């Protein structure tokens, strides 16, 4: 199947052209964060403070990579379960972040926020950390170093293979893909 190449930043206009089930190759700058990093960023925002990167049109990858071996950019770097970031995702979108890369189901309130802010939820293949690391060309630690694997990193990725799971209209590949399979294989 043809994969569509897209280049960040993820503007509202670009986000609206993406649909659940689209297979894409993503190029550009993204930021990494998971449970502890999100908690800290949302606490900062609640106090009226800035977060360590400009969230405008930003895409966040839910990942805690393995340490880079000498000479390597990064270690294995596949997605973690996105549902644990559901408590924070609407807040992140409210300050401008638009793209999320992870795996697994999202709560209805996240989908509602995505419809409001034109958010896009991309799926990377869970458990394919060695393969996904190949797409990461640059990695820079930008904040929260004390969190170890959960520290905030700025990554530059090239042709990262992703699938749009939930689009800005709320269409959901988890529901549609399964329904389609069951319809085609009805006994």
């Amino acid at each position, binding site marked *: *199947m043809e994969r569509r190449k897209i280049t960040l930043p993820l503007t509202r206009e670009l986000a609206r052209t993406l649909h659940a089930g689209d297979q894409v190759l993503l190029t550009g700058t993204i930021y990494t964060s998971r449970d502890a990093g999100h908690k800290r960023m949302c606490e900062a925002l609640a106090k009226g403070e800035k977060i360590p990167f400009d969230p405008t049109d930003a895409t966040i990858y839910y990942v805690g990579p393995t340490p880079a071996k000498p000479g390597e950019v990064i270690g*294995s770097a596949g997605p*973690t379960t996105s549902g644990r970031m559901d408590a924070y995702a609407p807040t992140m979108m409210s300050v401008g972040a638009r793209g999320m890369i992870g795996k*697994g189901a999202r709560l209805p309130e996240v989908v509602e926020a995505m419809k409001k802010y034109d958010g896009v939820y991309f*799926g990377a293949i869970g*458990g394919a950390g060695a393969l996904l690391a190949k797409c990461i060309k640059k990695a820079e630690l930008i904040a929260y170093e004390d969190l170890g694997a959960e520290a905030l990193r700025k990554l530059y990725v090239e042709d990262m293979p992703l699938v749009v799971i939930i689009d800005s209209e709320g269409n959901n590949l*988890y529901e549609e893909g399964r329904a389609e399979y069951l319809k085609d294989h009805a006994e």
Partner: protein
Amino acid sequence: MREIEVNRLTEVIEKLCIEANEHLPEDVKDAIKTCRACEDGEIAKGVLDNIIENFDIADSENVPICQDTGMACVFLEIGQDVHFTGGDLNDAINEGVRRGYDKGYLRKSVVKDPVRRGNTGDNTPAMIYTEIVPGDQVKITVGPKGFGSENMSQIRMFKPSAGLQGIKDFILEAVETAGPNPCPPMVVGVGIGGTFDKCALLAKKALMRPLNTENPDPYYADLEKEMLEKINKLGIGPQGFGGKTTAIGLNIETMPTHIAGMPCAVNINCHVTRHKTEVL
């Protein structure tokens, strides 16, 4: 009586932590490839191709298959004629994990307190399971367990009247609830019987059994086949995007239980079902 220096365990566990995280067992690879050959959806085929490419990269470049290099589950079957010398057994095991996760550039994913958190920084302590068996050997298995799938596991204390149907419904319910979260295609470990805690351990042990083996009791071997087929008709598919391959294997382990009970535990694992064994 055979004496074994505990530092030999440290060395073996260091090695097993690294090897288990970089090289998927052949039976798991074969199961994934078999499922790939049977898929017909475009997205499902693409996902399985990427999964195969991923474990090939890990094999050839000696890098972790998945970034969640897990909690180190260490199973020891200790011959009753063995005497450990030269130090504390638990310290020796944890030292092996510490060295393996450091030298192997594996992720340190353990927090020192379940509520107050705080990374221990070296992936210890290991989850240690010991069993005393006849003989003078020590069988060591390291199974790094990721938590994307561990979080989707369930246990239920059934009344005996729930019968086989209750267990079948529960297994399907657990997989259905897990949905796309545990990185399907999954491996399903089922424990039936024992007490609350033994039942959960049976489910974990079921995940350590190769996928090309079956339960020695034909009754449960048939149940393994039946439930795998039923799971693969749910349509969840690779990564939850829809398809035939929701699970690549299902193993059941059982033990006797009380007249009043029928515990059943379902331990979910992802397609990166890692384990490596060595005998001293």
